[in-house]
């Protein structure tokens, strides 16, 4: 099973407050444990929403709104992608998140990722093959950045 682990934003992440050396150390140690267990697939931090944008589609037409976005509770500050045997295992890993993050005060959301077997007949055999090909090609790209 795959899960996305979402580190929600707070006023510090939105203000671009950088992590301390201790937090970077603790986070790397935590990531390294998850990697060695074969659990961690990817992970990264997101820059504050002031550098971002939103695009809304109405009747097929896109409208762009630049950040920052005031509703911090709606924002993501970072995420990782993990592979585990159960939802319980995902929660156990997340409970071990570096305790000094956010001054000991953070909220992490765990969401299950859709995999091919979760879809029905609308995801035709041809589409499934195509998707597998796309994932493979994209995976090769992520190993060799432009």
């Amino acid at each position, binding site marked *: 099973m795959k899960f996305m682990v979402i580190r929600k934003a707070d006023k510090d992440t939105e203000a671009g407050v950088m992590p301390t050396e201790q937090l970077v150390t603790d986070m790397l140690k935590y990531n390294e444990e998850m990697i060695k267990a074969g659990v961690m697939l990817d992970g990264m931090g997101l*820059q504050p929403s002031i550098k971002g944008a939103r695009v809304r589609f109405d009747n097929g037409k896109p409208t762009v709104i630049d950040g920052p976005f005031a509703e911090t509770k709606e924002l993501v500050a970072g995420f990782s992608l993990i592979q585990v045997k159960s939802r319980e295992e995902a929660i156990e890993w997340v409970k071990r998140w570096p305790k000094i993050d956010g001054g000991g005060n953070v909220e992490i959301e765990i969401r299950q990722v859709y995999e091919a077997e979760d879809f029905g007949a609308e995801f035709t055999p041809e589409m499934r093959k195509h998707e597998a090909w796309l994932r493979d090609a994209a995976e090769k790209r992520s190993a060799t950045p432009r």
Partner: protein
Amino acid sequence: MRFMVIVKANKDSEAGVMPTEKMLTEMGKYNEELVKAGVMLAGEGLQPSSKGARVRFDGKTRTVTDGPFSETKELIAGFWLWQVRSRDEALEWLKRAPFTDGEELELRQVFEMEDFGAEFTPELREQEKRVMAEAEKNRSKS
């Protein structure tokens, strides 16, 4: 530069409404263009928050709350990871995404190692490189 493109949730995604064959076809075409242009690095759809959980950290306590979560505006339904030359390029691709009505997407720049300062010491940078190379191996086996 890398960007995360976040597809925000709505009541359909939270209700587990599956995409139609037409939508899947159009998305497949769009994803193929992204891959061919060397832009697409990753992409995933997320199951409704009813299958998820939140863990709140408060000093020493850890509180687990099971989904669903009612504030749909705080939820995401999926994401892409893109590699582009500029924010403008990312926006150009984003405006061409096959969404038609009321969907909202958010573009956020990813932190790269060069964005960090001295707190990310040379040793920590080396460790990060190793860790990420191992993560990539986990991905290719997944």
